[in-house]
C-alpha cells in the first residue's frame, strides 16, 4: 500500500508516504523536527503526545500519518502564534505550572482546544479535558490554576 498523503502541519502543507504506516508522533519529531509533542507511552495512555487534528485533541502516538489526508494538524509549537495559546503560555509561566514540563505540551494542546470551544469553562470541564493527561511531578494543581487564569485573561481582553 504505497502512496502519498497530504495534510498541513501548523498551516504548512506536508506530503508523506503512506508506506510504513508511520505514527504521526514519529513523523513530527523525526521528519519535521517538531519535538514538542512527546513520546510518553505510545499506547494512548498518558497524553504526552497529544496534538490537534482539525481542532480536536488526538493522540499523535496512535494516529497513522496515512489517515491524515486533508487534515490540519496543530502542534504545541504553533501555540505562541494565537491569542488563546499566548494566554495559556503566559498563565502557565506565571503559575509555574509544571516541574519537569514533560507533560505540558500535550496539556497545553488540550487546554487550547477547550478554551477555543468554551472560553469560560467550569472547573469540571477543565478537569474532564485534562483527565487523559498524566503528570507524575504532581504539578496538577498549578496546571488547573493556570488554565483558569488564562480563561480569565482572555475574558478580560474581550470584555
Amino acid at each position, binding site marked *: 500500500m504505497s502512496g502519498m498523503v497530504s495534510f498541513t502541519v501548523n498551516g504548512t502543507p506536508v506530503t508523506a508516504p503512506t508506506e*510504513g504506516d*508511520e*505514527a504521526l508522533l*514519529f*513523523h513530527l*519529531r*523525526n521528519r519535521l*523536527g517538531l*519535538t*514538542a509533542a*512527546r*513520546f*510518553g*507511552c*505510545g*499506547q494512548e*495512555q*498518558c497524553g*504526552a503526545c497529544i496534538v490537534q487534528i482539525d481542532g480536536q485533541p488526538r493522540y499523535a502516538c496512535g494516529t497513522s500519518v496515512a489517515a491524515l489526508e486533508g487534515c490540519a494538524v496543530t502542534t*504545541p*509549537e504553533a*501555540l*505562541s502564534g494565537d491569542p488563546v495559546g499566548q494566554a495559556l*503560555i503566559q498563565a*502557565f*509561566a*506565571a503559575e*509555574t505550572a*509544571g*516541574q*519537569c*514540563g*514533560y*507533560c*505540558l*505540551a500535550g496539556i*497545553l494542546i488540550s487546554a487550547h482546544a477547550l478554551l477555543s470551544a468554551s472560553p469560560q469553562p467550569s472547573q469540571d470541564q477543565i*478537569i*474532564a479535558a*485534562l*483527565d487523559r*493527561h*498524566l*503528570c*507524575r*511531578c*504532581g*504539578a*496538577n*494543581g*498549578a*496546571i*488547573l490554576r493556570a488554565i483558569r487564569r488564562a480563561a480569565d485573561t482572555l475574558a478580560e481582553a474581550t470584555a
Partner: protein
Amino acid sequence: MNAAPAPALPKSLQDNPALGQWLSLATPGRVAITPGKVELGQGIATALAQIAAEELDLPLSRIDAQPVDTDLSANEGLTAGSQSVEISGASLRLAAAQARAALLDAAAARLGADTASLTCDDGTILREGAATGLDFWALAADLDWQQPVTGQIEPKPVAALRLVGTSAPRADLMPKATQGGFIHDLTLPDMLHARVIRQPVRLARLAEVDQAWLARRHPGLSVIRKGDFLALTGDDEYQLHSAHLEAEFFTRWDDPAQPWHPTATPPETAIMAAEPPVNAANRRLTARYSRQSIAHGSIGPSCALAQWLDGRLTVWTHSQGIFPLRAVIARTLGLAPADVRVIHADGSGCYGHNGADDAALDAAIVAMERPGRPIRLQWSREDELSRGPVGAAMSATIEAALDGDDRVASWRMSVTSAPHAQRPGFGGFANLTSAEALDPSSRPLQVEDLPQAAGGGASRNAVAIYDLPGQDVRVRLDAESPVRTSSLRALGAHLNVYAIESAMDELAALAGADPLRFRLRHLSDPRCRAVLEQAAQMAGWPGPDGEGEGRSMGLGVARYKNKSAWLAAVAQVSVDESIRVERLWLAVDAGRLINPEGARSQIEGGALQSLSWTTKEGIALVDGRIPPLDWDSYPILRFSELPQIETRFIIDPAHPPLGAGEAAQGPVAAAIGNAVARALGARLRDLPLTRERMMQTLLEE
C-alpha cells in the same frame, strides 16, 4: 575584607576548592555557573542562578547555568536527597562572594584605590558611586581562578538579600513545553536510533535471535548481540519502535541457570537500642505496616545518546550522578575514565535512581559497536515501568505500650526492607542492568543500607521524633529480593513515617485521646510542634466528623531525615465506594526559602505523588518478577482525583534553608491513612489503600 573564623566548608567545596570550578567570566557580559548538581525538573538551575546573581549583585538574566559535564563542572556526586540547594547552594554562595571580593580587590589594585571605596552594580565597578570604566569582565584576567574558595568571605547578610527569597520564574519551563529542550529532543547529525531488548528476568540467558524473521519483517534494522545484551539499531525510529514491540516473536530466552541470589544477607542493625520493657503494661499495640515496590513512573521514558569518536566516548544522559556513572561506564567497557565524557541533559521528572543510568550504559554499548555514529537510545513505556530500578518494598512492625498516665511506655520498631541504595558504583558493583547482561558476574553480591550519616535508606525516619522512653529501632535488609530496588524519593521515610504516625493514632485511640493532643503530649521539638499546630489550625482540626461516618480528617508529621525540613499534613478523606482524598493542608518549616514558589511547587508535587503511591500504587510480583506494566495495570493519580491543597510555610529568616522536596512523602501518607482509618472505623495497614483492600478489611472485621 571581612575575616571570620573559618567555618567548616561544605563538602562540595572541600572536593572542588578552586574558584574556577564554580563560575567563569569568559563570555563578556555573562556569568557561567558550573556547579555539579543537575536539573531534575525541580528548578534547581533557577535557584542556583539566583544565589550567584545575589552575591555578585547581578540581575538573574546575566547568569547562565551550564549543562553539567564531567569535563567542565564541579564534581558534586549525586543530585539526590533534597540536599541540592543546601550543599551546592552554600558552596556556590561562598564561591560567588569570594569572586566578588576578588574582583573588587583587582579593581582597587588597578585604580590605586581602597577596596572599601568600591562597589559594583550590574557588573560595573563604582568608586564612591561614580563609574570607573572597569567591569567584571575586564578584571577577570587579573584573578587567580585556581585560588581555593576559603569560606572566609562572608556572603551577604540575610537582611540584604534581594533576589534570594523571591519567586524567580523558571526560564526553562515554557520553551521546553512548546519547543524542545529535553534529552529526548536532542538530535545529532547522522544519528542512529537504538532500542534494547531487555532480559525478561534478571540473569535470563539469550538463547536465540531469529534474524531471518527480523530481516523479512523489518528490513533496515540491524542486531547487536553481546552476551545476553541485545539491541536493535536503525535509521527509522518508528520501524525500530514497532520491531521492539514484537520482540517476543524473534527472541527466545532461557531461565537463569540459578534463581537470583545475592550471597550475603546483612545482619540486623540496631539504629537505637533499648532494654525490653520490664512490667508488661496492659494496653499495648502490635501492628505491622507495609508497602509494595513502587515504580518511578517518569512520564518520559529513559533516553540517552552516545558517540564513540577518535578514541573518546561521549554520553548524554539525564542521570542524577554523571561522575559516578562515568566511572562505571568506563570500567564496564574497559576504558580509562578520562576517555569517557558524560554530559547531563534534562530528562522527564526524576524522583530518584530510575532507568537513566541504565539507558546511558545501553547507549554507550551500542556506540562502541557503531563507531563514529551518534546513537540515540530510548526505552519503551513497559521497560520504564517494569525494568528500571523500583522503590523498595518494606514492612515495619511496631510494638508499643501505654502506661497508666496514657503515655507511651515502650516502643519497639523493626523494619524489613529491600535495599534503597543500589546506584551505579555503590558497594563496588556496577548496578546497571546491561552490565549484568554483558557479564552476569558483575551483579551485586551483597547489599548494604545507606549510612545513617547520609540519612539512612531503610532506616530513614525510622527513629520517631517523639519523646518515647525505651525507643528501640532495628532494621534488616532483605537481600533476597529478586527485584532491582534502589532510591526512590524519600527512601524508607515514606513507609517508616506512615508506620510511626499510624501507630501514634492507634495508641491515641487506646488512650481515648485526640490524636493531635496525644502527639503534642509526646513532642518537645518546638519547630515540630509549630508545624503540627499550624496544620491543625489550617484544617480546623478535628473537623466536624465522628468515627466511622465516612468523612474524616487524619494527620501526620515528621522531620525529614530527622535533620531536614519539618512538615505536618492534615488530610480529609471521604470513603464510600472508594477512597477519595478531598483536601490536604500542609504546614512546612524549611528554614529560609531561596525560591518560595519553587519550594511550594516541590512540596505540593511531592504531596500529590505520595497521595498517588499511598492510595493507588504497588507492584505485585508474579513468579518473583515484575510483570510487564503499563499505565492501565499501574495507574497513577489523575486530574479528576486531585484534592484541594493549601500550604503554609513557617519562616524564620535566621534559619538556614533546608531541603524540602521529599518532606511531604511520609506525613501525607500518614495523614491519609489516619483519615481513612477514622472514616472507616477500621485500619488498613498495608499500602496502597485501594478499594479492594478496604473491602477486604471490612469483611475481615
